[in-house]
């Protein structure tokens, strides 16, 4: 009975915390679906593909979203013609490289070198996102996106929204009046579908997180033992970040209390968590292929772990 009560409290608290941000993301995605002309995002970015990646990883500074909200937005933007590499770069960078996360990290580490931690977090988050996006740039889209994402692509940037996002055989083109009422119904309907597509994975992810969260203590004791290990500490904190699935706007407040750990290990926690955790593993499945998610997880773990250790080495040399 205790376990039920503990699971329920953890489940509801994470659900209540995250659901509004998913709603925000799906409403934005619904509006983008109906009102944003196909290819508009692509036209905003530089023509050079590498420069486009570099800029897209900074867009979180203008469009700040946390990791829960970014997935439905990216689903829609990629369908609207945003290059997959740019979409993925934005998806990984935006929860970190945004003013809200920067401010919360600064506040959390006040009195504990806030400039070093905030600057390190933003820089490493940006670097990793750019690196992943540049790799994706060289991959066939079919290796990255799940088939359902490929089934509803924008055929060309010049197509009208209706033509571009509805080659799925719904048979609705030209039938419904092109009225503001019709557009509004379409926007809400799109948001409904996106919310359920993301909400289902979120619900499963939150349930798993709640199970881990309420049984975290044996892991916490084990964490104490690895806190001073140069490679074990960042690896353990990345594992903890994965399990806890905290929001990027607030995870710094947890990291700041992990006083047994090095700055490098805390940095790994702060960069890895917003890019991959239990709930994101499920949310990503609404956009990405499972095999790609596995490769992404391994790559992020190795790259963030290695760079965090190097950063720690540079700080203490």
């Amino acid at each position: 009975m205790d376990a039920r009560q503990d699971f329920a409290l953890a489940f509801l608290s994470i659900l209540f915390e995250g659901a509004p941000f998913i709603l925000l993301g799906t409403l934005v995605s619904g509006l983008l679906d109906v009102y944003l002309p196909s290819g508009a995002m692509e036209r905003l970015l530089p023509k050079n593909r590498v420069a486009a990646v570099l800029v897209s990883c900074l867009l979180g500074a203008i469009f700040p979203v946390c990791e829960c909200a970014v997935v439905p937005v990216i689903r829609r933007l990629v369908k609207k013609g945003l290059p997959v590499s740019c979409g993925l770069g934005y998806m990984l960078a935006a929860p970190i490289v945004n003013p809200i996360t920067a401010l919360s990290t600064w506040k959390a580490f006040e009195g504990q070198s806030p400039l070093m931690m905030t600057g390190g977090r933003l820089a490493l988050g940006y670097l990793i996102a750019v690196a992943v996006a540049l790799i994706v740039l060289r991959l066939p889209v079919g290796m990255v996106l799940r088939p359902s994402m490929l089934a509803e692509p924008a055929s060309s940037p010049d197509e009208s929204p209706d033509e571009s996002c509805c080659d799925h055989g719904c048979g609705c083109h030209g039938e419904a009046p092109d009225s503001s009422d019709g557009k509004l119904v379409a926007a809400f309907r799109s948001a409904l579908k996106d919310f359920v597509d993301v909400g289902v994975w979120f619900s499963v992810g939150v349930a798993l997180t709640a199970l881990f969260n309420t049984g975290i203590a044996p892991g916490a004791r084990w964490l104490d033992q690895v806190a001073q290990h140069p490679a074990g500490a960042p690896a353990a904190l990345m594992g903890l970040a994965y399990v806890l699935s905290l929001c990027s706007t607030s995870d710094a407040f947890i990291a700041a209390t992990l006083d047994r750990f090095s700055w490098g290990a805390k940095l790994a926690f702060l960069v890895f968590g917003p890019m991959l955790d239990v709930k994101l593993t499920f949310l990503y499945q609404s956009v990405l292929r499972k095999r790609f998610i596995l490769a992404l997880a391994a790559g992020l773990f190795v790259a963030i772990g290695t760079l965090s250790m190097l950063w720690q080495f540079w700080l203490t040399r």
Partner: protein
Amino acid sequence: MTPKLQRVLFSLAILSWSAALLYFHASGRIVKYLAPDFRPIALAGGLGLAVLGLFNLLTAGEKADHDHGPSELNPWLAFLLMVAPLGLSIAWTKDEYSFAALSRKGLFDSPAASGASALAATRPPLTREELEKGHRRTADGFYEFNLIEIFLATGDREQQGLLDGMKIATEGKLAPDPAGEGKRARLYRLFVTCCAADSRAIPIALDLGGLPAAEVAAGGWAKASGTLTFPHEGGLIQPVLKVERLEPTAPPAEESFLRN
């Protein structure tokens, strides 16, 4: 399944999330789940979900400018995955953790082993006079301290020196200490960063001596008055309040400590 029926089903799933958010807000139970800055966001989320769900429910049969195909998820499975964990959690929740979960969140750990020293390092140095001046004194001579002040003092040698032997009164929830053989208990509050899932217990040890704690139920709010000491126990410094009086008290408006 027809697209209309699917839209109705999905709208109902969203409305169930909305109802949960709005109910917990209206009943005041939300304070047990979220930190204050997340509560208005949750209310806005509940209202937004209500609008989204109701709008789609009422327009489920209308034609739109362009409709997307049906969700790739089985609609019944999607509905079940969204509604069942929520419904079960609402049925199971008691708005608080069990002692088993609290022990995993540091209820029986020493503050010295759970980050008190790092947090204490951010506090300015004080003198005994300043401490006494900054705290109200009860009629029977106990200085009223917030529990977290005592917890943080464990990480600050200077504070310990000032507080050691001081007669203080503080409030928190009472938990029996399984290793205390009836002579020890814990007084604790939770520290919440964003939501209950990330909470940590902020405990101090109570030395009850021969004092019966039966008047305060386990998990109930209590005011403990006594002399504060900082003995070494198990190789760690532990704040221990040698209790002279333990009485039930009403919970404060905000039961948890918050990051602000």
